[in-house]
């Protein structure tokens, strides 16, 4: 009789045993990955960290690598450090080229304006024979960073060198996700300052 019942399961529905297994798997996922089932608030810790220092709170945004060069598709990787007792944040950034071409300035460009920041060299290393790793640093006013990350449309980052410039853009979906989270963190920092 039991077999007859199982054969009689309507099309498109799960047999009883399979349904129980799926429920168990979902329960296990909820138990072990609680952060996946809550809002984005808990995920903020994936984007930044903060430490108390003598001169204030030191915030650090983990490296973002969503910006890509228009032609070569090589990434621009940058992180942000900010000490609450100052008005400017330090932006350290890496870009990769087939030949050495030191940056002169970094330009943060939104649809409504741009911020030009002088770049200082940290190091230039040769990786994998033909890949030059350029690591530079610059300082940007926190208010300018807030303005940049508040941009609704995906912004651009330009690296200007002595003879050329490289334009880095971000996909709309990536900007919608990461830009808004960084913007919220900066807003939190400004509220605390």
């Amino acid at each position, binding site marked *: 009789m039991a077999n007859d019942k199982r054969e009689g399961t309507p099309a498109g529905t799960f047999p009883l045993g399979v349904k*129980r*297994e799926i429920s168990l798997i979902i329960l296990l996922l909820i138990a072990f990955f609680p952060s996946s089932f809550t809002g984005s608030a808990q995920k903020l810790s994936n984007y930044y960290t903060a430490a108390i220092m*003598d001169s204030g709170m030191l915030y650090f945004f983990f490296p973002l690598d969503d910006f890509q060069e228009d032609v070569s598709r090589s990434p621009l990787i940058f*992180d942000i*450090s900010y000490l609450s007792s100052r008005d400017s944040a*330090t932006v350290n950034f890496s870009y990769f080229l087939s030949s050495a071409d030191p940056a002169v300035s970094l330009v943060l460009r939104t649809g409504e304006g741009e911020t030009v920041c002088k770049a200082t060299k940290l190091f230039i290393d040769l990786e994998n024979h033909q890949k030059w790793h350029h*690591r530079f640093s610059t300082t940007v006013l926190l208010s300018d960073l807030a303005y940049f990350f508040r941009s609704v449309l995906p912004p651009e980052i330009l690296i200007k060198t002595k003879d050329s410039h490289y334009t880095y853009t971000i996909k709309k979906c990536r900007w919608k996700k990461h830009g808004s989270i960084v913007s919220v963190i900066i807003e939190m920092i400004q509220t605390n300052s």
Partner: protein
Amino acid sequence: MKKLMVLLIGVFFLAGCAVVKTPLTGFIYSDVKAPFAVTSNTGADRVGTAEATSILGIVALGDASIDAAAKSAGITKIHHVDEHVTGILGIYARYKVVVYGE
């Protein structure tokens, strides 16, 4: 039920694949931050990171040294160092070093 058991046993055995140094063990998922080192230097205004990753315990790549992290931010005086460990089902593991200094 048999399928679920096979899945759980599979997860258990995979957990031994991509192993990463961590103060706490989570064989299904781990995301742990912990202290690594402290110095007598005072003050910090810069932070640098470096990381290494492992896939299935077969391939492990990266430079997660304090030197690499300090170099990435131009840090010459280290204040303290934290580590951040992430692991998923023994399939993927990441070890990140975070250096604070000036």
